[in-house]
């Protein structure tokens, strides 16, 4: 499969979903989607025909506000019909603005930041206890790194040498109020994680090939959990959104939507 084309198609799905539903965290969806693409379409052992397979790999979207990205991946993978998303964030819908474990393929409810990595620690410990070889992937936002509970989980994963656990930091450097470094300094992520006993990989997180290589390396790590500091661009793939904090939670107008789709189609053509 051409993962670059897949990631571009998913970007179109996300933009369309948000445009139709009139709600969504567009910028963060666009920065994180390449990570999800590499995990779900190349590495992760998950099967919509056997959702509760005890040997499945586990995925937790700790930056739960990027739920549109996850829902677009899960529906594309066949966990539920794409038409289900017509009622995204609608009255009584289970497809809400943060991942909800009533949705096929979602392992745990997230949305409050600072929880997902600790869930992953528990899943990784369970896998070790049961002598299963599944892997656990947790994706966090960089603004989320200000939550103290994250560091409790980082400490525990390092202590227990959970090499079946891989964390990602979607390091797009923007959060609601501005840049992460203005709001609360997050540099150096690399030094911080390393100090807690993690194997640290720092890459361009919108580069499919770099992500592919990083996830492959994480699987080889022995005796240490791996974190991929994914240096990304918020709004990646749509020119007017890129690096704009305002697109954290904004819905495109008709013109913006049309332009975004056009740009993504041009991008897709380059990969064909």
């Amino acid at each position, binding site marked *: 499969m051409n993962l670059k084309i897949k990631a571009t198609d998913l970007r179109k799905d996300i933009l369309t979903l948000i445009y139709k539903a009139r709600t969504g965290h567009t910028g963060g969806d666009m920065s994180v989607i390449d990570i999800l693409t590499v995990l779900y379409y190349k590495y992760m052992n998950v099967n919509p025909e056997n959702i509760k397979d005890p040997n499945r790999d586990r995925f937790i979207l700790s930056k739960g506000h990027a739920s549109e990205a996850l829902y677009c991946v899960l529906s594309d993978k066949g966990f539920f019909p794409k038409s289900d998303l017509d009622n995204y964030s609608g009255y009584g819908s289970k497809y809400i603005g943060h991942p909800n474990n009533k949705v096929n393929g979602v392992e745990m409810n997230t949305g409050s930041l600072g*929880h997902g990595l600790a*869930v992953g620690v*528990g899943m990784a410990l*369970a896998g070790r*206890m*049961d002598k299963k070889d599944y892997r656990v992937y947790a994706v966090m936002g960089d603004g989320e790194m200000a939550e*103290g*509970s994250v560091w409790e989980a980082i400490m*525990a994963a390092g202590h227990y040498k959970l090499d079946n656990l891989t964390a990602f930091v979607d390091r797009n450097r923007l959060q609601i109020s501005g840049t992460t470094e203005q709001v609360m300094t997050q540099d150096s992520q690399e030094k911080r994680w390393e100090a807690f006993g993690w194997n640290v990989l720092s890459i361009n997180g919108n580069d499919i090939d770099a992500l592919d290589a990083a996830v492959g390396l994480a699987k080889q790590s022995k005796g240490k959990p791996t974190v991929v500091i994914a240096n990304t661009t918020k709004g990646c793939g749509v020119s007017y959104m890129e690096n704009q904090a305002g697109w954290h939670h904004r819905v495109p107008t008709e013109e913006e939507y049309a332009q975004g789709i056009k740009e993504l189609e041009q991008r897709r053509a380059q990969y064909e």
Partner: protein
Amino acid sequence: MNNIANKQAICNKLLEASQTDKDIVVLCSDSRGSASLTKFADELPEQFIEIGIAEQNLVTVSAGLASCGKKVFAVSPASFLSTRSMEQAKVDVAYSNTNVTLVGISGGISYGALGMTHHSANDIATMASIPNMRVYLPSDHFQTEKLIEALLQDDKPSYVRVGRNAVDPVYEENNIPFEMDKATLIKDGTDVTLIACGEMVKSAKDAAEILAKEGISARVVDMYCLKPIDKDIVIKAAKETKGIVTIEEHTIYGGLNSQVAQITAQNYPVTVIGMGLPDAPVITGKSQEVFDTYGLNAEGIAKEAKKVLNK
């Protein structure tokens, strides 16, 4: 006298059940000694996880384990477990509906002279306010064992609070009436009803004996199940006796008293007197000294019960 702390009873029960059920996992937050879990950790290290002093992580890691099929017991001082990790209890245990039993040890004012930081006088209120969270305060070690047995039979979230010290048993070895989510009627009575939870039940039972000597017939209810609370036994008490006294090692805001008053107000209004801890820093002292200060003893309960009858 067969006199052991409720937390010791939990450890004994878990140790026994875990010999054959390898899915049981116990976690603690540098609290294995104070939780009486040292024996468990020594005998079953593969089923025990030390999290360190990190209650938020304790609860969320527990939820992650449970999502992979483990039957998890997360044990930590009630004061920290019920407030510092309340959001983790809400999101990762209750909302995600994971098979985690949160065990709050040394609850209420068990820590005595260690002060307000270590008291948990609001854990019923915090935990009961979370949708899908059940709340239990067993009265003695016999009932604690029955409760743990019942919790091992289901896969729903719950919070259990026990005290630090050994308490005199309410029940007897061969007479431990227990039905899950149904209060235990300890003694029938027609004048007044004493509804207590946790380690206040013994004092309520003793108060009924004092009242009996004065010719007053007191009904005694062990409301170990705070959520779901046994509404029927409360309504029945409201109808069949002249009023109710609630006794709890908890602030009267949001605990047993609030719930009983809510049930009676909506179904059969009667006088409900609440006995609990004050809305103020609790006085320093050993548990019994603190209880005596606030009238949370047999004599104090009997005195309040008579107020119901004099109205």
